């Protein structure tokens, strides 16, 4: 499969809301307070108000379900979601991958409406960092 860089997304989060044990696992909600994104074709900031709704499953795998709004440096708003999985117990190295999708009404960024992407996540000191590539 071929891909090319789309952006690196850095998120800052508020203290986790531990919902507790629910039918699908242990539910944790991470409010997103801000962040930034940067790539060859778009850059800007993450608006406060999104969240990552996370469920830790009985098999130890964490499922992610994120919704945020991006604002580009030239003022376009982009709705972004991803689902993903994080498996810290994966053989070799943690497996933390996401499947981002985008929606925008801004013509300059309408290419985002027509692509699929994959992100590789990591937890840095400042918060989660996702390196996102467009699937070509």
């Amino acid at each position: 499969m071929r891909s090319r860089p789309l952006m690196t997304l850095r998120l800052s989060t508020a203290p986790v809301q531990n919902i507790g044990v629910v039918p699908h696992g242990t539910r944790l909600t991470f409010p997103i307070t801000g962040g930034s994104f940067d790539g060859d074709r778009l850059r800007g900031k993450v608006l406060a108000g999104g969240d990552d709704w996370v469920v830790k499953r009985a098999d130890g795998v964490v499922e992610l379900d994120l919704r945020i709004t991006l604002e580009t440096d030239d003022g376009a708003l982009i709705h972004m979601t991803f689902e993903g999985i994080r498996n810290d117990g994966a053989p070799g190295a943690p497996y933390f991958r996401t499947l981002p999708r985008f929606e925008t009404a801004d013509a300059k960024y309408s290419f985002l409406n027509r692509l699929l992407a994959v992100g590789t996540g990591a937890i840095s000191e400042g918060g989660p960092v996702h390196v996102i590539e467009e699937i070509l």
Partner: protein
Amino acid sequence: MDSRLLMTMQVAVVFPKKIGAVPHGTRVTAPIASGHFEGPRLRGKVLPGGGDWTLLRGDGVLELDLRVTLETDDGALIHMASFGLRHGPPEVIAALARGESVDPSTYYFRTTVRFETGHANYAFLNRLVAVSSGDRRATGPIYTIDEIL
């Protein structure tokens, strides 16, 4: 990004149901009658009863929402769900609509794939995400599905 082949999957689509114009676009549901899949770690058949719920958006992009059940050759059942996008130059999309054979590199047909299974031999599928490239044939699509490493 690193990936490796998980499997190829071919399905047969029969009697698409044209739901028509709905608030988000034009909806067509394509029932899947049969199929098969094969890769280094799993192979078997696609059970009848799944489908691809498609939505042609106002911007000309076709959204794909597929759910099928796979049965491996050793009897495991696997729930598979994928979300995809298909679009391309108007003449290419028109040729596809006429059922012609079209070089899949001339249009964008990609899906992201998730699996669920209760079978221990295939539990690795619960812990990965995958991406597929589609080749739309007159009888139904062929997907090359890669595991994201």
